[in-house]
């Protein structure tokens, strides 16, 4: 589901500034459907891994407290223009999301 993820990576000095936006409802499991009064089951991205040229640089675990359509910004020192940054994410139902961007 690559279309669910938007990424951008730009160099700031010797550091790559990476911004990731993932389309996801991030349902907490604590809210009720306004019409049916039933609890909306928890549905959220719970793990994210970022790589630089295939090598892991960031491993994240998320709970339900990350806002809807999650935004993640991180920085990689020593990256350079042309490097590939990948992001893999998975939600609690096992759906995988991935994206890749070349550092500008």
């Amino acid at each position, binding site marked *: 589901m690559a279309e669910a993820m938007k990424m951008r990576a730009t160099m700031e000095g010797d550091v790559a500034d990476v911004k990731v936006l993932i389309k996801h409802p*991030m349902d907490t499991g604590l809210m009720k459907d306004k019409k049916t009064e039933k609890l909306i089951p928890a549905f959220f991205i719970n793990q994210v*891994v970022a790589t630089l040229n*295939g090598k892991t640089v960031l*491993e994240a675990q998320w709970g*339900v407290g990350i806002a809807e359509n999650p935004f993640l910004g*991180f920085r990689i020192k*020593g990256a350079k223009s042309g490097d590939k940054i990948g992001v893999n994410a998975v939600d609690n139902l096992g759906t995988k999301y991935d994206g890749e961007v070349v550092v500008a």
Partner: protein
Amino acid sequence: MNQLRRAFLKSAGTVGTVAMAIATGLLKPGAVFAATWNNLAFTAKTPAEAISNAGYGGATENSDIVIKAPDIAENGAVVPVTATSNIPGTTSMAIFVEKNPAPMIADFVFSGGAEPYISTRIKMAKTSIVRVTVKAGGKNYTNSREVKVTIGGCGG
């Protein structure tokens, strides 16, 4: 090659086949979620329990952890938070909202050149202390700041 990997991921049904793919060198370990999700920390109801279960217990206050967040958030459903650790040797960072029903928000482990910096957007049920904890040189450190919330982010 990437195309092949994607096609493979789609067809691979079970964890077993993925593990086998790693063993045979078809998949890079970097693309696989190695750590198990810390259920104990994320389901803890109190901040102290969440922090302890996440492995950040006994953290000492340190103002070298810089937390950027609004003083007043009009909408608790989306509160931008940026945290930077200026403590040398920082290897991981976690974010907690003390008054949320589930205080633990996220945990990040840095490696291979990643700076101890995270920017994200979190949910806040009500006005609360936002706490950031880090691991550096085998020790735990923490800093916090209050964010006032005018409309809570967890419905009602």
